[in-house]
């Protein structure tokens, strides 16, 4: 099956710092989503971004489908950004299931 790897696995930031999270995948995809799992366990949709670049406030994401990676940028981080960030992908073929990466655990300290 498709492999989805995220880096770094853990990240500690001071409030106000910027960061870049990476998602690499091993096969062609037609769907890529970024999620934030908050400290209460909720999975919140951040971006649906199979290709191109999107921005939403302090967050932006870029997917280069031909090179099989996606990046999530967090600028001016806040303590509420803490949690785990997941990317999930859906292959171009097969059963179209959504496969999750291993996640990046982010801690933003005041």
């Amino acid at each position, binding site marked *: 099956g498709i492999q989805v790897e995220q880096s770094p696995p853990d990240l500690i930031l001071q409030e106000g710092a910027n960061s870049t999270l990476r998602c690499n995948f091993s096969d062609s995809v037609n*769907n890529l989503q970024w999620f934030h799992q908050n400290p209460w366990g*909720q*999975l919140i949709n951040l971006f*649906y971004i199979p290709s191109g670049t999107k921005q939403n406030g302090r967050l932006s994401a870029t997917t280069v489908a031909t090179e099989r990676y996606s990046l999530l940028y967090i600028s001016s981080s806040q303590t509420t950004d803490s949690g785990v960030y*997941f990317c999930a992908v859906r292959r171009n073929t097969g*059963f179209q*299931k*959504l496969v*999750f990466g291993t*996640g990046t655990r982010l801690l933003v300290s005041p």
Partner: protein
Amino acid sequence: DARVTQTPRHKVTEMGQEVTMRCQPILGHNTVFWYRQTMMQGLELLAYFRNRAPLDDSGMPKDRFSAEMPDATLATLKIQPSEPRDSAVYFCASGSPPWGVRGNTEAFFGQGTRLTVV
């Protein structure tokens, strides 16, 4: 307010008991996923339905787990008998049509059921 609703939110049960978790997908969504999240394994896909038909349940232990969609507004995940190793958070997600090769839609998750088997 369109959202995926899961019940119960928390469940504590004794080993050997039957557990049923329920999910109401977003109205109009025809694709439903069940995931299990543990610290060791991350988010694992257990089952995947489209138009109420199971498409892939290869991630689900067949001897004790079963997943069904009795109608378009209800998906169930059942464990019988439950074991301590089943303790995890179980998430349901739904996606709107057309979910597929030409689909351009995203999946949304419920709040999860935290299961503890003692």
